């Protein structure tokens, strides 16, 4: 490791002037990074880690953003004081960036070729042919098969992982000295994440890149960085080389982050699932293939997505069953079709002895109170125009579990259950944080005291620490109310923490199932092994 600093940031302070007054995004941040190093910046969303890096390249929208003070010496010149046209020469050429969501970061209207080549064309003096050749070369390097043809395709023809590879290629094209990767894998599936991470690591080694790696996932940071920077609410909390930080953190916040990383198995509970008794829910080779309508302005375009084919699973009373798989593996479809949000084509869903797949109308309406769902996105799953009280009271009143006099007491009870302050029941969803919203959603789900709860990725949209809290809550509730839960997730570590048994799905089929720990101990299928391997280790 060479010693002189490639980039050294001093007393950076960034503020945003929003409608509701000024907010400080980055407060007096100083750090430096040496050539060839990988610096991991860790923190939850809102910790200002991204803003700090964007401001280096002048990418924060100004206004409302404003860099109030600080210097950022890069090869001796202060980035923060560079005029725009000078800054352009730096971008991509000297300092390149990879962004979080590959789906939105590529221009949908341009061919990959043009988007790649223009980097070279604006920064280096080479002609189109050379540029194209170079582009293809790099695409191959980032692991895009038959790049020569694919380079002429449009972004929508690439999968998420592939797009992120393209983004990386784009970043590396002009051979920058510093690469800033902003949560490059957060939006991706675990297995894909693993691939991308290893790709970046290899490239870094091969090219002796200097990398700033922004993430909220300590596991990822540990894996990638040799030097870590922990941020909270725009302030620097702690920094040091990865080992020391993770072995013996000094700051409580760091500890909190560390504790949030799930490594433990499900703690044994006093009551154990009785597998002798007939299962509460019996799904017999269920088949859900539905036409997906890509609604365009002229004609709805029909394409058949095979959601679930011939899946059979059992779910026993008081059991928490983990349903694991990547996006598109059909796990959510399965969940939704069980509670009849989607109709199934074939197979039966026997719940408490009666087949749900056939009932309709009033009987279905009544059956619904037996099973509830917790959704992934806490922002979308609550009606923004109803107060917490209304949200929670509605099901109770509709199903006559409460009358106007008793409803308030019950609602308050629910608030207590999910650990929300009773005082908040008159507030609206947008006034809560993501974690709190998810608590509300959970409260709504358990309001009807359902026999079965289906939780669809309830924590994947949350920050690590919040995630930990919500999981803890779910665990507590399942044990307190002896809930039976189908827990859908793509994250093995999460599932391990919560579930008694695991079903692994791939491409709409069940590939493996078993008791959690035994499955972790000895995964049979290669796919399962991949999933396990994908868990970032500390």
């Amino acid at each position: 490791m060479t010693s002189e600093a490639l980039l050294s940031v001093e007393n950076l302070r960034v503020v945003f002037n929003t409608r509701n007054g000024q907010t400080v995004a980055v407060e007096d941040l100083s750090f430096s990074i040496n050539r060839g190093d990988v610096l991991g910046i860790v923190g939850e969303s809102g910790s200002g880690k991204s803003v700090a890096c964007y401001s280096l390249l002048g990418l924060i929208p100004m206004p409302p953003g404003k860099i109030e003070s600080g210097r950022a010496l890069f090869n001796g010149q202060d980035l923060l004081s560079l005029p725009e046209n000078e800054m352009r020469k730096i971008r991509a050429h000297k300092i390149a960036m990879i962004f979080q969501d590959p789906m939105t970061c590529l221009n949908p209207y341009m061919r990959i070729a043009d988007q790649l080549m223009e980097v070279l064309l604006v920064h280096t003096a080479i002609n189109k042919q050379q540029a194209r050749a170079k582009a293809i070369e790099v695409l191959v390097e980032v692991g895009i098969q038959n790049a020569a043809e694919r380079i002429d395709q449009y972004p929508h023809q690439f999968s998420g992982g592939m797009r992120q590879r393209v983004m990386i290629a784009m970043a590396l094209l002009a051979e920058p000295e510093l690469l800033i990767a902003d949560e490059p894998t957060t939006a991706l599936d675990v297995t894909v994440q693993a691939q991308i991470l290893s790709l970046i690591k290899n490239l870094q080694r091969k090219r002796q890149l200097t990398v700033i790696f922004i993430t909220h996932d300590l596991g990822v940071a540990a894996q990638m960085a040799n030097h870590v920077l922990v941020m909270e609410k725009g302030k620097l909390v702690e920094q040091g080389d990865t080992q020391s930080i993770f072995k013996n953190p000094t700051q409580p916040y760091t500890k909190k982050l560390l504790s949030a990383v799930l490594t433990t198995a499900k703690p044994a509970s006093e009551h154990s699932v009785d597998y002798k008794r007939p299962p509460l829910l019996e799904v017999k080779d269920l088949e859900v293939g539905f036409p997906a309508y890509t609604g365009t302005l002229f004609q709805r375009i029909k394409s058949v997505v095979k959601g679930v084919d011939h899946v059979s699973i059992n779910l026993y009373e008081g059991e928490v069953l983990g349903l694991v798989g990547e996006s598109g593996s059909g796990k959510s479809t399965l969940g939704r079709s069980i509670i009849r949000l989607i109709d199934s084509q074939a197979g039966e869903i026997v719940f408490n002895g009666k087949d749900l797949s056939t009932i309709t109308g009033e009987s279905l309406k009544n059956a619904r109170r037996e099973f509830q769902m917790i959704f992934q996105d806490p922002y979308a799953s609550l009606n923004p125009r109803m107060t917490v009280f209304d949200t929670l009271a509605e099901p109770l009143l509709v199903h006559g579990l409460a009358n106007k006099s008793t409803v308030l007491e019950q609602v308050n009870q629910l608030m207590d259950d999910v650990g929300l302050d009773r005082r908040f029941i008159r507030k609206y969803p947008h006034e809560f944080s993501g974690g709190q919203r998810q608590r509300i959603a959970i409260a709504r789900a358990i309001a009807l005291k359902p026999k079965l709860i289906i939780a669809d990725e309830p924590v994947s949209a949350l920050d690590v620490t919040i995630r930990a809290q919500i999981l803890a809550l779910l665990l507590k509730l399942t044990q307190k109310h002896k809930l039976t839960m189908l827990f859908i997730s793509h994250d093995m570590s999460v599932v391990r923490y919560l579930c008694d048994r695991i079903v692994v799905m791939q491409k709409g089929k069940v590939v493996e199932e078993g008791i959690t720990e035994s499955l972790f101990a000895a995964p049979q299928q290669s796919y399962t092994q991949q999933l396990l391997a994908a868990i970032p280790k500390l």
Partner: protein
Amino acid sequence: MSEVIKIPELSQLEKGRSLTQDALARLRKNRMAMLGLYFLLALIVIALLTPWIAPYSYEEQNLELGASPPSAQHWLGTDILGRDQLTRIMYGSRISLAVGFIATAVALTIGVLWGAIAGFVGGRTDAVMMRIVDALYALPFTIFIILLTVVFGSSLLLLFLAIGAVEWLTMARIVRGQVLAIKRQEFVEAAISMGLSPARIVSRHLIPNVLGPVIVYTTLTIPSVILLESFLSFLGLGIQPPASSWGSLIASGVEVMEEYVWLLFFPGLILTITLFSLNFLGDGLRDALDPRASRD
């Protein structure tokens, strides 16, 4: 929006601010929009009070006087029959605003219902309903209204209906789009999975959430409706004499703009200011209701 329930310890409760309240708060910060709003309110008040506060009677003629420029007696001058223009404009505002609001209301009702049903029911119903909208879009509508008024005589009621019939199409499309978008939102799925009735889902979960864009579009529809009325008046298909609307005033003002420019200027001015106000208000509302804004 929230059901009113007696809550004993209401005092200790933290009262939440609904999106609507947020929006209003933001709107108040928008000076232009508020300016527009106040102007419109003032206008409406004046329009309502006109019969009592108007300086003259709107049909009272002074043939000897004829068309006279603004003066102490007639602040905005008089028209060729010597009628006080200020009065005419005040009475005109009654009709123009009425047309603006009522016709828009017609469009709103039809459009929202049509769009919401098509969007929520979906499937074949949706397809058919939207085909019909397309069909109506294909009619050259300005002409169609002329035809209507020619055929059935120009009554105010017809005016409302005819104009409403033109404007509801876009409204329907907007609402449908919104409903489709919101239908996919998880809180609707949640509502379904809680076993709520479709009626309740539409009324409590869908409609409240499409209101935003609808309101915005409404404020932008009113101006175009007022213009449409003026256009019909220009064709002599507007309202009946001696009653006046801004449209009819402008239409006859254009003919004489060289001789008696004030007969075009003042009605034109008031119309323009009104439309500006409506537009400002509309833009203000759009910003205020912007969901992205309500996140930060």
